[in-house]
């Protein structure tokens, strides 16, 4: 005859094994969903809906090497920080569309935008944005000027902008444009004016 305490021990072990299997199955499902989300090449769709507002996007055009203001109507959330994020996402949508006036690498996105100090905005790009960016003084400057000028034109009160990549400081965007310092909105406005006219 099998002892009773042995039967109880086997039952407990079977229950633990079943529980562990269910837990692992659940974890695998979550991991799969995360991997699928990471593999998406476009920026996340705007989470907001409702009435639209007019914004001015400074769009880079590679064929003429210029930066041109372009108005668009997009739904904007109420919070200043969320609005900043939304405006930049709209700009990136233009670059990630096909045909693109200024192509960016697949998966380029703005991870976050922070308004941390009166006048200071921080744009946190994802690694795909910088790693997939084309290298060159002008082509990198067009990207930086487009982001900075679009942000400062639509979010009042921004005087300085810092660009991070994956939450960290990075020396250059793709070997040329210096990201180590802060961009003064006034100085970048002058650069945007220089970039407005083709040679």
């Amino acid at each position: 005859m099998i002892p009773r305490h042995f039967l109880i021990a086997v039952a407990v072990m079977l229950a633990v094994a079943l529980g562990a299997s269910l837990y692992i199955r659940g974890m695998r499902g979550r991991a799969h969903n995360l991997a699928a989300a990471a593999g998406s090449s476009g920026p996340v769709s705007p989470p907001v809906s409702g009435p639209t507002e007019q914004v001015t996007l400074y769009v880079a055009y590679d064929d003429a090497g210029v930066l041109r203001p372009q108005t668009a109507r997009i739904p904007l959330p109420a919070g200043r920080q969320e609005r900043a994020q939304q405006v930049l996402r709209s700009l990136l949508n233009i670059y990630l569309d096909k045909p693109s006036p200024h192509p960016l690498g697949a998966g380029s996105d703005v991870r976050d935008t922070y308004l941390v100090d009166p006048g200071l905005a921080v744009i946190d790009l994802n690694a795909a944005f910088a790693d997939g960016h084309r290298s060159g003084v002008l082509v990198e400057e067009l990207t930086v000027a487009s982001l900075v000028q679009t942000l400062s034109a639509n979010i009042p009160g921004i005087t300085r902008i810092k660009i991070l990549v994956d939450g960290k400081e990075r020396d250059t965007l793709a070997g040329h444009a210096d990201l180590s310092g802060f961009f003064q909105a006034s100085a970048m406005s002058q650069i945007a004016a220089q970039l407005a006219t083709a040679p």
Partner: protein
Amino acid sequence: MPSTEKFAAWPPLASAAVCLLASTFLLLGAPVEKLISIYSNVANYSLPVLTRGGTDYVGLLETLEPLGAVNARASGSHWKIRYNNVEAEFVSGKARARIQGGDLDLPADFLLEKGRGLVPLASLNTLLPRFLGGPVTLRESARRLFIGDVAVHFTAQVSQTNPPRLVMHFTSPVNPTIATESGKLRMLFTHEPLVAPGSQTLTFDSKTIPSASYQENNGAVEVVVNGTVPLMASFADDGRTINIGPPPSALATPSAPANNPPASSPVLLGTTSAPPASRYFAVVDASHGGDERGAALSDQLAEKDVTLAFARRLRQELEARGLTTLVLRDGDLTLSPDQRAGITNSAHPAIYLCLHAASQGRGVRLFTALVPPAPENLGPFIAWDAAQAEFQAISRAAQASLAAELQSRQVTVRSLSAPLRPLNNVMAAAVAVELGPPSDDISELNSAAYQQLVASAIAAGLGNVRDKLEAGR
């Protein structure tokens, strides 16, 4: 004039005369600054040598700074230095140092002067390998230090042509300061790790150029070519070859003075008095290099290779106009923006030109620095990121002159500002040149004809504002 008034004028006159005489004696008696030249794959540079109690000393921090990440801290009589992952500790007045846990005896005491750590010059031979992890060769009497296998060798041979020419081939491009005097042509190599051929005196089977001598001293090498007629030098093969021979006029009229070569002769170099050895008119910086390839312009074409070829062409064009030029990266080296700015600021040029190449767009883009606002109250110091601030006006003047010359040669050109290092760290007029292809064919970026056209326009543009740039130094 009353006699009292006449004599009243004497004291000021006498004082002035005494001051003049004193200054003359002081100037004549001023000792030549002692220097050590250090050659490495990363950078070639010179440092001052200080004499304390009859022993030559050199700053250890300054010695290591151009070679890698270094920092030092003084605490009382102790001085700690860290170079990359190597830590060392020195004690002022002691000859024993501690490096990576091991002791090293210096030939003389370590000195600490105002927080600056000085080591005996003679110790560099044993001290530096501990930091750098590789061999160094110190030529102590000449004060020349070779880190690794960086020596530049040369051969010299007189060609049997009419007129005969001395052809000197170097294993790497060189850029000596050249001066002539009666029957001699002197070449001073201050930045090249040149080493002597087999003998210090070379004799040739030529009546026109019978001999040459090699001498190294105070961190430099002087090669003197002796001739029975005036001699002049020309460069070829991107600075790897120097041809020395008599100018045509010297053969026709041997008594003609050696100076003033024809201005129309593009490769003839200054045969008048030598410019100051350490003063370059231009520093030309071939961007990227080594591990950093820059933009992939095509499957075969890397930005670092295009910028180097373009830099060498630009040097030829500038020097043909008598504008002495230092090519900052004259090989496949990795240099950080800080190193590039440091070397440039040490050379005190009239202008710094940083060269880039891109496959996007057409023609040439000229960039001046986007300088951040300088922090206030830095006293005698200058903010590194805003060092360019006081040179922005002269940089824009140079940019405008270059743009005008390029336009006059039908090259598409655009003038912009950019956040591009190390432009904002340079204490001289500074312009970045981004070379784009002239047409849809990106391979034309590397074409000799296109590069020559742009280089020639840039050299002419700089020539047009030479006086302004010189005044802005």
